[in-house]
């Protein structure tokens, strides 16, 4: 199963995009403008990876962006950036991170 199929099968996920660290769009589902999502969060991931490298924090794994209404979870796997727009629905972001992280184990 691909990253996209694995993520999109989760009930909390409303939209998902697979791109890369240079912001290129590969595939997506449930997003009106998947290319914009891939570009924005590809840049977010590459910038934060750079910040982490400067701080000696090692490889970037997950970025969570939360607002009152929704959250975006960005999972970095090698050069791939998987962005999922999720309905938090009262759950903690940490638990959703674990669910999405586990869903990508062995995928790609």
């Amino acid at each position: 199963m691909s990253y996209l199929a694995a993520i999109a099968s989760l009930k909390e996920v409303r939209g998902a995009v697979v791109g890369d660290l240079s912001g290129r769009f590969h595939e997506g589902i449930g997003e009106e403008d998947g290319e914009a999502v891939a570009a924005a969060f590809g840049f977010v991931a590459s910038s934060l990876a750079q910040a982490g490298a400067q701080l000696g924090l090692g490889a970037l794994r997950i970025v969570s962006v939360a607002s009152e209404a929704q959250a975006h979870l960005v999972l970095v796997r090698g050069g791939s950036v998987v962005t999922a727009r999720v309905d938090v629905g009262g759950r903690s972001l940490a638990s959703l991170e674990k669910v999405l992280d586990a869903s990508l184990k062995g995928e790609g």
Partner: protein
Amino acid sequence: VDSILHGLMELVGVRATMVLDPAGQIVAWRGHAAFDRSLCERVGGVVTKAIESVHLQDAGWETISAQFANGRILVRRVSPSDGPGHVLAVVADPSLNPSFATVALRVAASKVRTAAEGGAPPPAAGAQPGVFRTSAGGEAADPASAEFLARCVKELARHVGPISKVYVQEAVSRVSPGAPFSLAAARLLVEDLSGQIEDAADRAQFRKGVLEKR
């Protein structure tokens, strides 16, 4: 603000904490030795670029958490505004409890917002006689000095925004350490505050605005 950052530093796992302005410049900072101000300034610039990109996609964002193999970066918006605004950022090692840190960051951001927007606490019971609690959030020796501080906050805000109140409070603690501010230190205070304004013409306008109205 310094005491708020100090409080965050007491959380297990926190290695550095800072307040960044919308341009990615450090407004306040505390960190362990390996996370010195220079490093945090470089990182702040990079993180701010990420924030700008997030803002384009979700203008209502409140928090960003980046999990790395050996630690985390947590960012919280200080106040909702039209632009990305000021943010509070924490760098932590893997021993950080993220749920606990999220709550602590929310509380700290609220305190920074209060300090920046004018919510100074009411005078404490038993406050010294002859000391005036100012609308700028500090203490002044007399009403004229309190009025001068308020004018500094207002004039500086024209150039740096609502964080001006924090700048004035910090400058007062430098030019008048351990004592209520008085007009005798006015020029010293204005020179100190001028350092927060990058443009020379704006600096001159600020000096003129506060000193000529005395």
